[in-house]
């Protein structure tokens, strides 16, 4: 994929006392970014820098206040109807609470296939069977989210995004709500999918993992991409002193 973001602005109402709002805060401040032809883009940066805000716009969940986004030269739609169609062609997984708690893992997987993509129930079941087995989740398919481990929940969520055959996946800190033992199984799944050519845009605080899977890295701070480019350059000799400071605090030596 090739992603070009130009002068992206996003604002949120600023909370004032008594539940009223006082003006707005600018969270993305003319953010620009251009990647080469890559498979995986990883967004990193300090907390509150605007990574999630950017990812939500890229995933078609929020509309920016201003600016342009284009994947492979195709600009994102600017109306909710168009964005919904766009969302059907991509997949998004959040930090937690992706699955619907009143449905079993299997029903969670079937729901978008049947209700959004028009498959029959039988067709949808056939579609999800192989991926479930491949990621050793078939034996858990009948369980409700409350009966699954955190890692299993996230892997089912990734599968649910995957089985609709999306053009790319957007992941926002998919492992940060997990215990360390479960992180590995989710990260492993992502690495495996990336190795077979799946495209990802992902936010993570796992620097070792970012280094392993990223083709390019964008450092998002204060609502801008202050440093971006190839993974080797980013980790090797970052020009930006903020990036050096950031890496010093997060990178395991």
């Amino acid at each position, binding site marked *: 994929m090739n992603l070009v973001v130009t002068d992206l602005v996003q604002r949120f109402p600023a909370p004032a006392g008594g539940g009223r709002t006082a003006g707005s805060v600018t969270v993305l401040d003319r953010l620009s970014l251009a990647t080469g032809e890559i498979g995986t883009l990883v967004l990193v940066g300090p907390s509150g820098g605007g990574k999630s805000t950017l990812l939500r716009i890229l*995933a078609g969940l929020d509309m920016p206040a201003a600016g342009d986004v284009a994947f492979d030269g195709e600009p994102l739609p600017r109306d909710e109807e168009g964005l919904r169609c766009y969302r059907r062609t991509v997949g998004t997984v959040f930090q937690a*609470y992706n699955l*619907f708690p009143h449905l079993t893992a299997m029903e969670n997987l079937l729901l978008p296939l049947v209700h*959004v993509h028009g498959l029959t129930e039988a067709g949808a079941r056939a579609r999800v069977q192989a991926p479930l087995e491949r990621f050793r989740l078939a034996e858990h398919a009948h369980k409700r989210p*409350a009966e699954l481990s955190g890692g299993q929940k996230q892997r089912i969520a990734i599968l649910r995004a995957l089985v609709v055959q999306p053009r790319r996946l957007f992941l926002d800190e998919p492992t940060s709500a997990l215990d360390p033992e479960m992180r590995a199984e989710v990260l492993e799944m992502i690495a495996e999918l990336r190795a077979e050519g799946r495209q990802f845009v992902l936010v993570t605080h796992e620097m070792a993992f970012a280094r392993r899977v990223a083709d390019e890295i964008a450092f998002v701070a204060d609502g801008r991409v202050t440093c971006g480019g190839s993974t080797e350059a980013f980790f090797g000799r970052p020009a930006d002193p903020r990036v050096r400071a950031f890496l010093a605090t997060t990178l395991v030596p």
Partner: protein
Amino acid sequence: MPRWIAHLLVAMVFAAAVAVAFSRVDYDWNWPAVWGYRRKFLQGWLVTVAVSLSALVVSGLVGSVAALMLRSGNSLVEAAARVYVELIRGTPLLVQLLIGFYVVATAVGLENRYVAGVLLLSLFSGAYMAEIFRGGLDAIPRAQIDSGRAIGLTPWQSLRLVVLPQAVRLVLPAVAGQLVSLVKDSSLLSVIAISELTLNAQEVNAFTYSTLESYLPLAAGYLMLTLPLSALARWLEHRFRYEIA
């Protein structure tokens, strides 16, 4: 100890206490006089059942519409729903029935007191239902709505497939409580001369001067409706229990 035995035991102790209380009052029981009016009780009870069931359905509809209005995002629509809810909840049902029937229903030419009664009772109960439903809808985490949007659901699909199934489970106990109240509140319809159970019990009392013998069956008549309703609610709650399972 099985639950039903516990219930039975408590009921028996309670009945014994009530029996002692009654035995201390100097009261001439005259059951035969009231027994003569058993058909009247039955007719009144059937009217109460019919009125309650109708109001139950209509108030569910009214409550749903008002709840959706309360969180529509349009400030005018929200204000209208808010005024409705607060007016209804802030005034006695008695006043609503009297004004609603003798003033409003008359003004709009609605003469059938049974239809008017059901509508007024539904408007009353619907205001409480609206707040219960709104609370249930608001309790669904934002992440669930986001997940629904992320997989490409339309707002209507999201409501039907994601929000409502979870909200129903959340509001079930409160709705059951409200329905029990609704059944009992239907007794006030006697003030607009709807011939339901309470009005008939009052008439029997007037004919026979046997107050307790008229009103004890009245209480029993309501319990026969409210107890199964509570039991049904508990059963449904159990069926929809998925988080703890």
